């Protein structure tokens, strides 16, 4: 169990983490989601007592990190790939960590086996690929067989095989009843692995909800209709008391009705349809809208326009936020 209370970190007059309060519950995979620069890594570094918070506190199983006697046996962390002295072999890197926490040397061989680095155990980590460096970092996190595991952007820069491996590893670790806290800027990645979701943007907490609730709330399905006779179609819809929204391109978005029913309705009224398609909003879109205002550095050009297009999003996000707040 990790508890954050009013955690704040300022660098000069720039606030990186702003009054964060949440709890990472045991036995669950908690996804920590936010755009680049939202303060995820800073928060994780503060959890490990590497950075000092400006104010607020963090308790791990009720204790401050510095009060843990053998921290590697409580919490294992993968912060950045290759926080490693490249001149040391994989085995020796893990050995010196094990010794500082009274972990027997045979455990080093075990974790090397688990992450599949046993064949290169005696090689200097300087020559390791990004994926191998990531695996070595995970081996270090697993060294003390800790109850809590923390991964900062574990799939970043990995090939599909590596991503698959990390996903399965996290699922396996969670199935053993461990607490897993994993950060990402990819909603799609979180949807596959996390049960609980914490979303931050510009250092502020934006959502703290279960993944199931988030999906139920945001996987909005609707039917999209385009017709050359919008006025007649509108009347037909009104007659059938179906509510529709017209989007920027003049297409109808109809929620809560099946496409078959809409098609039959159009046929009865002898209307020409150019499009009749069931649609599903992606979670990625929902996440982007939720954090649209808080993204720190917008890209120029078309992407910036897209940002403007999502301008009404904050209202939408806020509405959603209060909604889940009621549910929670």
């Amino acid at each position, binding site marked *: 169990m990790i508890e954050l209370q009013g955690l704040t970190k300022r660098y000069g007059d720039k606030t990186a983490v702003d009054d964060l309060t949440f709890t990472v519950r*045991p*036995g669950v*995979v908690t996804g920590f989601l936010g755009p680049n620069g939202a303060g995820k890594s800073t928060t994780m*570094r503060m959890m*490990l*007592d*590497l*950075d*000092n918070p400006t104010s607020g506190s963090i308790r791990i199983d009720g204790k401050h*990190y*510095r009060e*843990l*006697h*053998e*921290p*590697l*046996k*409580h919490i294992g*962390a993968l*912060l950045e790939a*290759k*926080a*490693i*002295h*490249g*001149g*040391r*072999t994989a085995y*020796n890197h893990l*050995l*010196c*960590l094990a*010794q*500082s*926490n*009274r*972990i027997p040397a045979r*455990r080093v061989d075990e974790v090397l086996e688990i992450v599949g680095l046993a064949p290169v155990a005696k090689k200097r980590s300087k020559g390791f690929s990004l994926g191998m460096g990531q695996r070595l970092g995970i081996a*270090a996190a697993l060294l*003390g*067989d*800790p*109850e809590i595991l923390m991964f900062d952007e574990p799939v970043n820069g990995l090939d599909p095989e590596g991503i698959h491996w990390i996903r399965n590893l996290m699922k396996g670790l*969670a*199935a*053993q*009843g*461990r*607490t897993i806290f994993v950060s990402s800027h990819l909603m*799609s990645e979180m*949807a*596959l692995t*996390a*049960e609980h979701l914490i979303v931050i943007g510009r250092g502020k907490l934006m959502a703290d909800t*279960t*993944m*199931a609730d988030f*999906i139920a709330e945001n*996987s909005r399905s609707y039917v999209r209709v385009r017709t050359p006779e919008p006025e007649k179609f509108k009347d037909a819809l009104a007659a059938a008391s179906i509510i529709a929204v017209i989007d920027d391109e003049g297409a109808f978005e109809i929620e809560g009705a099946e496409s078959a029913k809409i098609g039959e309705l159009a046929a009865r009224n002898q209307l020409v349809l150019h499009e009749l398609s069931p649609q599903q909003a992606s*979670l990625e879109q929902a996440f982007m809208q939720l954090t649209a205002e808080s993204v720190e550095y917008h890209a120029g050009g078309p992407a910036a326009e897209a940002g403007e297009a999502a301008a009404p999003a904050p209202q939408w996000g806020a509405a959603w936020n209060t909604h889940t707040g009621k549910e929670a």
Partner: protein
Amino acid sequence: MTAPVHMPAPQFSSTVPVERTHLGHALRSEWTKIRTVRSTIWTLGVMLVLILGINLLIVGLSSSDIVSDPVLGFGLFGVLLGQLCVMTLGVLVISSEYGTGMIRTTLTACPQRGRVLAAKAIVFFALTFTVTTVACALTALMNYATFGGKPVGEGSFLGPRLVVENGLTTASGTQWLGATVGVGLYVALLGLLSLAVGALLRHSAGAITTMMGVVLLPLIIAIFMQSDSLHKVQEKLIEYSSPNAIASLYQMPMLENGDADGVRQLVVLAIITAVALGAACATLSKRDV
């Protein structure tokens, strides 16, 4: 996209028992670290080659019939260069962790930062003190075998600190102590000061350059202090400069009227090192890494 199935989590229990760690564990960890990187082997290897090699060269080239300086004194020249290797290693022990990001892994494993610094300092000091003292003892034996036991004639020129016993050149107990343990202690302390500077600056090149300055600048500045009013300052600068401190331990001080045994310089360096380590410990405990 499928939602993960929510199932009751089994209670996790770790297989390894948790106990209180202490400095001993940090020492073992740091010993593993220092012996498993190439920079340790290289810097200490080069130091041994310099100290022993230069001495061999001197012994080979000099005519051993005329002895005027202390018998063990020629060890000085190798040590003057060899100390640079120890300083480099001292800086690297800590700054390489900052350079590679290893420091974050280290402090996650051992969040008691003072303990990490203490363990690094102890392991480094013990290692370099041992290696330097052994190298110096070997050169001292080499020099004693070459320059000791030579008959001193009536007309020969004698340096003020050459010990003569029964008409034969020899070395006093103080000279033996200074040329072995004394020099080992001084060089290891310089290395420890480098470690502290490395911890303060967190940057290898910057810290090594700073230490070069500490070792060389006092002497260079003294050369330019030619006016009479600065004479006292000039003498002090020379007296406490690192090359003169080591020379004094060999009883070959640059200033003829200076104290010869180098103990005062050793104490001064120990105090400076302790202060620097204290400052390093204080900043390491406060800083974000």
